[in-house]
């Protein structure tokens, strides 16, 4: 007998919350990015859990696509970070606040 889905989902929620709090609290853009990856992984875990629970392969297929999109996102995101760092020195996320009201 395997572990019930509620445990997985709770874990997923915990991971997601940690990622979200990290995103809001940290100022280093790279770490913020990692937090985004954490949140994506939490979502993936929930997907896989539901796939098992509902006996539906769609959940795993969704995770597959999330992985691909995450890879693309990291590539572009890091490209943007490199481009920003080339113009500014020691950029944390808070240094970039030109677009304020």
């Amino acid at each position, binding site marked *: *007998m*395997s*572990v*019930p889905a*509620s*445990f997985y*989902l*709770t*874990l997923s*929620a915990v*991971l997601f919350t*940690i*990622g*979200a*709090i990290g995103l*809001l*609290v*940290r100022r*280093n853009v*790279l*770490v913020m990015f*990692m*937090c985004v*990856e*954490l949140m994506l*992984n939490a979502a*993936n*875990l929930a997907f*896989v*859990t*539901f*796939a*098992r629970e*509902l*006996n*539906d*392969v*769609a959940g*795993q*297929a969704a*995770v*597959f*696509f999330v*992985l*691909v*999109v*995450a*890879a*693309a996102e990291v590539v*572009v995101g*890091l*490209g943007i*970070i*490199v*481009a920003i760092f*080339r*113009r*500014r*020195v*020691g950029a944390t996320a808070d240094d970039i606040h030109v677009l304020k009201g």
Partner: protein
Amino acid sequence: MHGALAGGLLATATVPDALTFAVAAIISVVGALGVVLSRNPVHSALMLIMTLFGVAVLFVEEDAQFLAAVQVIVYAGAIVVLFLFVIMLLGVDRNESIAAEPMPAQRWLAVALGVLGLAEVILLARGKWPTGAHTVAGPLHGTGQANVAVLGRSVFTSYLLPFEITSALLVIAVIGAVVLARRPRGSGEDVDPSIGPRVDSGEIVAGGGGSAGRGGAGAGAGSAGAGSAGAVSPEQSIQAERAAGELVTAGEPFGAVLKEAEGVSIVQRRES
């Protein structure tokens, strides 16, 4: 509470399953906390790998063998390595202080909202909530086929169009990354990489050539060593002031920064 949790776990699952879940879950959560709490981005990246491994184990536990493998190969093997490359390229930025928060209430609000959201999700798990109809993708178990075969069949039949679109997305991402990372030709705003290595006792500290050193230079601006630099521009002194309250790691290898008006030329040298 822990006892109750473990009891609940053991009551519903066999011991190996429960044990695997518990260990993997603890690894994941500890890794996640490590990502958020590490001061050094490199540590964060390593902690991320830890979480990813934990999740991969959970994937195996949940009969998603293919995804577990991909998780390790793509995430741990490619994405996190990419993170590490960028960190090396730009320099390790330990400028950020975890203790200080420039925006008041941001942190407390973030934690409060996060906990609230978590509570809501857990509450939701207790309530009844329709999950909707089954998809057309087909069942996961009971087909007599391996996980990879089932997933592959699904991806190449039901999800063929999204699959093709993701290929286009990847190509676009590659092109985008190239365009973003490319040095704009003939633009004066960029730093001349030839300056860095030639300054007096100048020695490149961080690997990755001149451009990597620039990022590091900025990162080091807040260190206590700023005051000992030869020339201090007004901007830099402001930066130094702001950084004064932050924690400074002893033996910081990065030294002063000389930054000209528009950040055109940055010189970096090793502190003696």
